[in-house]
Structure formats: C-alpha cells, structure tokens
C-alpha cells in the first residue's frame, strides 16, 4: 500500500497538542508526523502518558491539534466545509477502550445502531435499518443477529459489547478506524477473536486502522503486515514495519521496551537479554529533559550531543524511521548541530 504523501489517506504534519495544568503547560503530543495509506494498519505503542491516546483523538477529529495539520486525502481537515467535512467525519471512526462506558445503557442494540443510519440517510425505514443492522452484526460475528437486536448492554458480555461498539463505528461505512486499547478490557481468551473481526474488516472492506495499545505482542499480531510507531513522552521515537521493529529495534527505548516485556513462555522469558537503562524514573511532562527527552535513561547517551540537540525522526532505509542521534549516525545520517532547540 502506498504511503507517499500524495497517496496517503491521513497525514499528520507536525501535530502538537498542549494542555494547561494550572499555570503550567503540558505538551502531550510533540510534533508528530506520519502518513497512513488507505487500508494500512499502524499501531501506536508506548507507556501511559506517552501521548498515544491524544494522537488517536486528533486523528479521529475529536480533538484539534494545538499546532500542525491533519490532512485527509491531502486536504487540511480544518478547512473542510459542508459535504467534504461530512465525508471526512464519516470516513474516520473511533472504537473506545471501555465497552462498559461507551455504550448507552438504556439503549438496545437497535437503539445504538439505528440513529447513525437514519442521520446519514443510509436507511429510510425501520425495516431498512433492521436489514443493515443484521448485516453489521454478522460482520462482527454476532450470530444469529436477531438474538441480539433487542438486547441491552447489561445483557451482553464484555466481548459482545465491544463487538457492538465496532458495529456502531461501521454503521457509517468508515475507511479508517482509530481503535484505542480496543481489546484490553476484554478477557484474554477472546482478544484474538476480536482482533480477527477487525482484520477481516480490513481484508473485506479495505478499512485501515490506527491501533493504540500498550501490548507489543498484540501489536505484532494485529499489524503483522503494517507498521508500529513507538511513542515516548509525546514524540514518535521509532516508526518501522512491524517485523523489523520487533526483530531488530533500532531506538534504544524500543529495544528497552521489547527486552523488558515478559513472555508467555518460561524458557524464552527467563533467558531474555535485557537492555539496562541508566535510570528507572520517567521524567515529568511538566519538566522534560533537554535535547532528546530519553537521554537521562538512555544506554547510548553521548554527552554534548544528546542533552543538547533534539533528534528528528529520520529515515534510515527499509521504510524505517528513528529519532536518535547515535543510531542515525550509525546509519550514515548527518547528526545534529543545527537542529537543536
């Protein structure tokens, strides 16, 4: 799938987002850029507070960026009006983390799924809507559909509720779905089946995904043929094809994360070689380190370089991008000097 700027479905162009905390300002997302092609799967991973959810909300149009642009089919979404704006809003949907909170408890499945159908004139009558809802329920593996149409959320299991959330996102025939920790609230035994539902949407309908998760093993499963972006303190520190990132992480933070993850295999997990960090403390977003924000913890830290200049995300070949002076130099990139802040 093409990801060139011209062919991208969604493009983030140096988006940043700040929030006021008392008199101070927190930069939750700091100059994030990436282009996502139609039908492409990109996973954003990182620890809590790294800005992955905020990025997802900006992509979904639920939160405007403080600076930078979001482009939909090459056009700045802030300039879209009328039908163009409608088309953009319909094309991008979001599935939230908590299926217990994101469904209205006093609405049946029909009551949840039918309003968007009527609102966007995808159904003109109750029987129209019912027909479409049956198709949607089949798509998310809730069969036979008639058994569920009149059910309330409390009559459904967590996994079934999340399927309804997915079906709701599908009502408006989106081309791209932001899935924010969409399976982390459901039991481990059924996560794979939910991911398979989403993957089938990609295969059958060409829906692309921004899949936000803290679980790299899930990211590997879901984005097997896509890319993974690793975020740290509001910045994307590495963006690479999934297998390349998992097999051979380039950024020291990605490497540390991957080496720290416990694996469901005693031999593997007990014999893993771990990347040792220089410090366990996560810096406060209110008081970010200078230069590269990872430098106080980084095993590759070089004095006079890393704490002075802020690294940019640069291509190092093989569709891989990394934001690290040391790694960039190893790959023949010219390092800093003038890009510092």
């Amino acid at each position, binding site marked *: 799938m093409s990801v060139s700027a011209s062919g991208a479905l969604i493009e983030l162009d140096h988006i940043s987002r700040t929030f006021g905390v008392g008199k101070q300002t927190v930069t939750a997302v700091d100059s994030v850029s990436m282009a996502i092609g139609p039908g492409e799967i990109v996973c954003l991973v990182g620890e809590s507070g790294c800005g992955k959810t905020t990025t997802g909300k900006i992509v979904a149009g639920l939160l405007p960026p403080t600076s930078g642009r979001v482009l939909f089919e090459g056009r700045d979404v802030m300039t879209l009006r009328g039908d163009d704006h409608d088309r953009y809003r319909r094309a991008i949907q979001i599935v939230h983390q908590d299926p217990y909170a994101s469904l209205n408890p006093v609405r049946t499945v029909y009551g949840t799924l039918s309003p968007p159908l009527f609102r966007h004139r995808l159904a003109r009558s109750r029987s129209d809507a019912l027909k479409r809802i049956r198709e949607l329920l089949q798509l998310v593996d809730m069969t036979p559909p008639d058994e569920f149409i009149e059910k309330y959320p409390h009559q459904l299991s967590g996994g079934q509720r999340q399927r309804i959330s997915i079906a709701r996102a599908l009502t408006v025939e989106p081309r791209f779905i932001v899935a924010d920790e969409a399976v982390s609230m459901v039991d481990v*035994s059924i996560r794979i089946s939910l991911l398979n539902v989403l993957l089938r949407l990609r295969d059958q309908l060409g829906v692309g995904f921004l899949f936000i998760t803290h679980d790299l093993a899930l990211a590997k499963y879901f984005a097997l043929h896509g890319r993974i972006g690793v975020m740290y303190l509001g910045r994307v520190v590495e963006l690479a094809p999934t297998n390349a990132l998992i097999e051979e992480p380039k950024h020291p933070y990605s490497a540390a*994360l991957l080496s*720290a993850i*416990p694996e*469901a295999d*005693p031999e593997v997990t*007990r014999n893993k070689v771990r990347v040792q*960090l220089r410090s366990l403390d*996560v810096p406060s977003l209110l008081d970010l380190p200078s230069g590269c924000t990872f430098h106080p913890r980084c095993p590759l830290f070089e004095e006079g370089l890393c704490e002075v200049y802020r690294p940019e995300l640069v291509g190092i070949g093989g569709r891989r991008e990394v934001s690290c002076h040391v790694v960039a130099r190893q790959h023949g990139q010219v390092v800093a000097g003038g890009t510092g802040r």
Partner: protein
Amino acid sequence: MRGSQEARSSTRVTETLPPDVVLSVRDLSVEYAARRGAVKAVRQVSFDLRRGESLALIGESGSGKTTLALALIRLLTRSARISSGQVLYQRNGRAFDVLLLGAEELRRFRWQECAMVFQSALNALNPVMKVWDHIQDTSRAHDGAGRGEIQRRAHDLMRLVQLDPGRVLGAYPHQLSGGMRQRVLLALGLLLDPQVIILDEPTTALDILTQRAVIDVLRRLKHELGFSMIFISHDLSLAAELADRIGTMYAGRIVELGDVNEIFYRPRHPYTLGLLKAVPTLAGDVAGLSSIPGSPPDLIHMPSGCKFHPRCPYMVGSCVESEPELFKVGERHVSACFRWQDVHRETETARQ
C-alpha cells in the same frame, strides 16, 4: 522469627503436614449470597504450598482466583460464606486450621504469618499518611518493636525493593509513581517477615519498564528471603516469569495444577491449552493463535458436568453428565479432564 506469638491451642489440628508444606488448602468452597441464588465462586479447591515455592493462580475474570486468595486470610465480605474445607497452616512443625482461628489469633496470623499485597497500590495506601507512618502503624499494631528497630527494618526493606529510603519514607503516596507504590506495598507486606505472601495482580496496572522492575524485585526477594508466594494473575507471561507451579482456575475450581514447564509445554486440560493459544507472544509465531469460543459460565446456574464443556473442543457425552475429578497426568501434575490423554496427544504432535 515470631513463632512464640503464633496462634495458640484450641485450633491446633492433630494431623501433621509434610515438613516442607507451609499451607495446605483442602476441599475449600466459598459461596456468595445473591438475590438470584448462591454464587459458587470457589469449589472444592485443594493444593499444597511448599516452603519457598511460588504458585500462580491463573484464569479469566470471574474464575474465583481473588475469592480464593481472600478466603485464605479470611478477608471475604459478609455476603460470602466458606461452605466447606480447611486451610491448614504450618510453622515450626505445628499446624492449625486458619478457618478455626479466633479473632485475636486471626489478627496475628494476618501479616505476621501471611501477608497480602493488593492489586491497586493507590487504594491500598492511606493518602494522608506518609510511607513511614504506614510502616510504624503496621509494626505497632502487630508486634510493637522499638522505634529504632522499626527504622532499621524499614530502611533495609526499602533497599530490598530498590527504593531510596531517604526519599520514599517521608513521602505521601501521591508523591510516588505507580511502580514505587507497588514496591512500597510489597515492603509493607514483608515488614513482619511472613512465611507466605499473597499478591493479587501485582503488576497489572503498571507500565512495561516498571513492571519489569517489580518482577525482578519479586524474584530476587523470594530467592533471598525464602518466603512462599501465591500470586493471582490473568497474565500468563507473569506466571511464566515467576511461578514454580501453576494452577489454572475455571468456574471456581482448579482444573489443572502442575510445574510451570509442565503447564506451558505439556498442558493436559483443554482450558489451559486454550488460554495458551489465545495469548500472542513476541517471540512466537502468530499462526495457530485462536480465542476460546463462548464466555465463562454463570456461576449461579452453571452447566451440568464439566463446567467448561460448552466451550470445549474435546467435549463428549460424559462431559455433560459428570464433572471430572483431578486425574494424575504426570509427575506432580493433575488435570480435571476426561480426555486429558487426547489433549496430551495434540500438544505432543504440535511440539514435533
């Protein structure tokens, strides 16, 4: 050690336990009273915990793991009732039944003999008390050691869990990160030198790098201090890291129990096998991953026979009629499945 202060007389049982067993749970059942009927949260659970051993209880939400852990130190809510069983605890060659302890004996048993570290580190600490106050409070309530001794012990413990005593002891809980709070709780749990420590989802809410720090601390402490550990987790990878033995729970029962390598590489219960297949790993292949169909049973109106039969790919007629007992399927390995040999065959074939 504080053997002299342990629970006394009336509750001592004549039965002797093997010398290396610290806790022996026998036929334990717990029910909750609900409007619709009795919720059978724990059903006929039996296992032995040996000295220095770490046992992981794994299973989905609602499988009864937390209820079981709470029952062991009798912290169940009022709506719960222990309907059968014994929890035999042994120290210095003497055993007693925890379920028969009187109020004062029970108070001593908790924390001094058996400590619990709860899931939510923020909720388990008092927000208006400094860490040092928590330590003093606990210490005073249980053994009343002198201030100097408590202080020394507090400093030792903080260093054991890799926290800087100077910084942490004077801090309020909100001034610490999630991983630091979790380690403070762990240090508090160890304060009175218990033989057994129970951890409920010890790393669930933590970030990856913090989780790693807590896991490493736990492994080292267990090695250095030699306590026994029961930990509850839905996370198979944590069990793979820390457990010596693993018990898989389903619908309130331990359906499989065995050494960690047995459970991961030679599972003999379809539910354990299903869980292993449902969890992707970084190192493993993505092929062959699949979810377990259906959802866990209603604990009030449970299916007949084996409670897993509606979701089980191995189901046959007898599974509907009666519930299988735990069969011996290997060295120190039991499984409650009529068809464990078929599960066995499949996993052996898959390994080749």
